[in-house]
């Protein structure tokens, strides 16, 4: 199988990329791009699933290509295969959706753009390149291949981010993304160089073999560099800043891919280096990851709550979900360091499950937000509303995603959060009491996060889709095209499937890390039948039966009510308005108002600035002519961390600029001075 699938994957992406270059922006070109991407992603999905189901790793190498750096080495083991599956799961619906969505870029038509602009031809090409490079990151087996593909992935996604480059702010967001991506790249590369002792052609096998011999301090430095480098891709606080900038401006199917898949490769890198190559480390590694995860989760969702830009809200919520995943992985690393392998296995399964789930529901939500943007040309929730009647399908799909991300049963978010909770609850088995006491705090943080997430997505769905439209474009919104609906529908089905069939998914996830980094090679750490059961019977639950029960009850209630002959008449009438008739959208609760109580509760964090301008009638101050209210929350990370850093860089640049006068004489002087200096140095050394 794999002999066919691997070339098929490459061929699919190559075909899609070519179609992107040559097919033009018309309908045929768009569908050929989607076909190539879907074919490549589908083949990758099959390849990954085969490796996980079958066990053994697959190896491809091409020593002549890039021979100077050890050649192109690819090896697909179960860990890489899991992420290959993830890419397939995210990319197939996004490709189908993209074929419909990119219609907005056709010819001169500027549905999504206020200004005409060139350059979208490349987006189909870049999309396929992006998917291909992500797939090869998950398969890379030596340092050079990994770093090369990592950089290709960052660059191709950068070009996708700036697709709508004529929009205000897009290029700036792109610069932030590029800057953060390269900061991360430097850390990752430095970590690998330290690991391999400067040999950039070293294969992962040799790293794995040499890891144990490294001094403990060096191992920790490598781990910290990997955490910073991969963390900047994964969007952990405080390296999360590019997510709320780059995700909103990218085309929505690209946002879905970036949020659902790209940032997950940061987790892949972290797992690969810390668990597989380094073979795990002291407990504080896990504690650090757990702590960063908890901070990211809580801060991510708190900032998401205050956001009125639909796509920025989703981007901040990605920070939150990455935090939840990191909490699970951190707990796993802690258990691993104490040799509690069953609990470590459980934690990693929980983290991987949430990774997969997040790709499904966040992909779905981004596609839904894209459909809203497509229909109304705005991302500002304060201008939306009432879309459930104008775009019923999109609204339904978005509702599924919102319920799933709020961890409501019987959808997928619930299952993985339940697993993360169970993993953290197992923390009482840790022998060291300081580490064990972190766990209840983490449980509290996770619960707070999930409660706030529910509030956040009530806001996101309720303000955007319910009640009366708040603007003319929202009133005139149209339903998404069939291709876009198909993409969303696939992901909504996946949310349901991953929710009610966990007993089919979890054993496969159990195999992913089996035998890696000292975890037992026998993957059956948890017993699974129709219900999920923790080791030693710690907890048991059956989402499948719960779903059956819920659906049964929902069907039963109307039947029973009818048998009891309750009054089934219904009258339509105006909303009750305290005696006032004629309801307008201005009487509705706004997105800002919805989040106001939480803004007050967490006022120490937000430090909102308020600006109230009231224009009174000249005759009497009891008549108000206009009121203007502005409020902003303090962007701590920009203010405290990044602005001083950027100021410093600018200052240094200004200092260096003094050398550059542009005068030829001065440069001749520099050259001769350097020469003299070098001669002196050479003489004395």
């Amino acid at each position, binding site marked *: 199988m794999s002999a066919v699938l691997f070339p098929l994957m490459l061929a699919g992406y190559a075909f899609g990329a070519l179609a992107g270059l040559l097919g033009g922006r018309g309908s045929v070109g768009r569908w050929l791009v989607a076909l190539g991407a879907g074919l490549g992603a589908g083949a990758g999905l099959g390849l990954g699933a085969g490796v996980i189901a079958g066990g053994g790793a697959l190896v491809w190498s091409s020593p002549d290509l890039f021979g100077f750096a050890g050649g192109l080495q690819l090896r697909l083991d179960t860990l890489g295969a899991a992420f290959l599956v993830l890419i397939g799961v995210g990319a197939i619906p996004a490709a189908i959706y993209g074929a419909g969505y990119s219609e907005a870029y056709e010819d001169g038509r500027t549905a999504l753009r206020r200004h005409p602009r060139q350059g979208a031809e490349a987006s189909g090409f870049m999309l396929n390149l992006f998917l291909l490079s992500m797939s090869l990151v998950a398969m890379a087996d030596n340092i050079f291949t990994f770093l090369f593909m990592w950089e290709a992935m960052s660059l191709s996604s950068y070009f996708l981010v700036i697709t709508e480059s004529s929009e205000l702010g897009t290029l700036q967001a792109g610069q932030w993304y590029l800057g953060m991506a390269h900061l991360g790249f430097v850390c990752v590369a430095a970590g690998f160089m330290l690991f391999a002792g400067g040999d950039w052609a070293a294969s992962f096998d040799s790293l794995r073999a040499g890891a144990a011999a490294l001094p403990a301090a060096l191992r920790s430095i490598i781990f910290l560099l990997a955490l910073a480098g991969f963390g900047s891709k994964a969007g952990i606080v405080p390296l999360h800043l590019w997510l709320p900038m780059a995700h909103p401006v990218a085309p929505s199917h690209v946002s879905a891919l970036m949020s659902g898949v790209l940032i997950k490769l940061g987790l892949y890198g972290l797992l690969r280096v810390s668990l597989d190559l380094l073979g795990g480390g002291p407990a504080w590694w896990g504690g650090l990851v757990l702590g960063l995860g908890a901070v990211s989760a809580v801060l991510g969702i708190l900032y998401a709550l205050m956001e009125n830009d639909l796509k920025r809200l989703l981007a901040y919520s990605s920070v939150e979900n990455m935090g939840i995943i990191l909490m699970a992985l951190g707990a796993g690393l802690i258990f691993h360091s104490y040799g509690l392998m069953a609990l470590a296995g459980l934690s990693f399964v929980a983290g991987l499950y949430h990774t997969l789930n997040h790709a499904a529901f966040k992909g779905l939500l981004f596609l839904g937000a894209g459909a809203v943007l497509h229909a109304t040309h705005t991302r500002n929730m304060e201008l939306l*509303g*009432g879309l*459930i*009647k104008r775009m019923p399908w999109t609204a339904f799909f978005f509702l599924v995603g919102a319920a799933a991300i*709020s961890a*409501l*049963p019987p959808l997928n978010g*619930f299952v993985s*959060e*339940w697993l993360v909770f169970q993993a953290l*609850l197992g923390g*009482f088995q840790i022998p060291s009491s300081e580490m*064990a006491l972190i766990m*209840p705090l983490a*449980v*509290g943080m996770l*619960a*707070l996060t*999930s*409660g*706030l997430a*529910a*509030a956040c997505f*009530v806001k996101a769905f*309720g*303000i955007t889709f*319910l*009640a009366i439209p708040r603007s003319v474009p929202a009133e005139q919104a149209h339903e998404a095209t069939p291709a876009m609906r198909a993409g969303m529908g696939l992901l909504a089905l996946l949310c349901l499937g991953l929710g009610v069939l966990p007993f089919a998914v979890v054993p496969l996830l159990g195999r992913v890390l089996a035998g890696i980094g000292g975890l037992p090679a026998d993957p059956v750490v948890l017993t699974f039948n129709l219900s999920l*059961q923790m080791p030693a*019977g*710690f*907890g*048991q*639950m*059956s989402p499948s*039966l*719960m779903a059956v*029960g*819920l659906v049964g009850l*929902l069907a039963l*209630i*109307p039947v029973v*009510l009818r048998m009891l002959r*309750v*009054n089934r*008449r*219904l*009258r*339509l*009438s*105006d*909303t009750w*308005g305290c005696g006032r008739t004629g*309801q307008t959208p201005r*009487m*509705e*609760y706004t997105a800002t*108002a919805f989040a106001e*109580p939480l803004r007050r*509760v967490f006022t120490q964090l937000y430090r909102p600035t308020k600006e109230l301008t009231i224009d009174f009638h000249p005759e009497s101050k009891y008549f108000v002519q206009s009121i203007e209210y502005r409020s902003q929350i303090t962007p701590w990370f920009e203010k405290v961390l990044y602005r001083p850093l950027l100021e410093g860089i600018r200052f240094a640049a200004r200092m260096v600029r003094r050398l550059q006068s542009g005068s030829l004489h001065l440069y001749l002087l520099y050259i001769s001075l350097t020469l003299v200096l070098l001669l002196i140095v050479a003489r004395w050394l």
Partner: protein
Amino acid sequence: MSILLDFAQGVLALALAPGLVGLVRWFKARLQNRRGAAPWQPYFELIKLFGKDGVVSNNASWLFRAAPYVVFGSTLAVAFLIPTIFAPQALGGVGDLLAVVYLLLLGTFCLALAGLDPGTAFGGMGASREMTIAAIAEPTLALAIFGLALEAGSTNLGQIVAQTLGNPALAVTPGHLMAFAALFIVTLAETGRLPVDNPATHLELTMVHEAMILEYSGRYLALIEWAAGLKLLIFFALLSNLFVPWGLAVVLTPVSLLVGVAVFIVKLAFLAGVVALLETRVAKLRLFRVPELLSLSFVLALLSVISSFVLR
């Protein structure tokens, strides 16, 4: 057989729920020197509501009409999972304590969306406040569960009950007592009781739950009111049967089941009296003081877990 008993117990809880609401009101009236309506008044109210026409806002969508069913269904599902008159439940493997929390959150989520749907300021206000309170009550709930699970070695309700029954000394450990206090405060918040919300107001700017369901009428309102009563009963059942499990039938004989029913009703009546007394004594907190109360309960729950660790 035991599955049938499970369903019977859920239906019993459903039947008792309006009576419990009426009992709290009756106690409260008596404590305030009023005669008050009889405890079974809520049954008449439900019958009345089920007989009335429903009025739905023009602005509302299908979600508004579906939400009451989801709220009622998810709350009823919880009633099948928790121990009320006997333990362990045959359906215990379907959902543990965490699943109970998230099933209840499903109802809150739908109701908050339904509050936003008709487009009134009242509904939005109620939804916003309800979600705020639910969000900050969540950590306490999770930690109280952690404390209980730590001692029982499981989040399964049946095992928590069995552990306390087998080792009665557990019921008076500091961890247990503090977890009880924390869960009691959360119960007040989650079921919209004083001092967090006032179930007796319908037209005040301070209301939370009532503001959210203001647009509902007829059978929809009946379902929501009934589900709210059932939620109160569920929290009372968790408080009484997880912390003081004596009286629960552990062998399924007719006599022990009857004893179980009788003891359960006594426990409910006791908690109803406590809540009525509290509601008579305290005034409603300002909305922005509620987080302070809930952080108190969070600290209690955290102390409970830590003391369980220390005394382990």
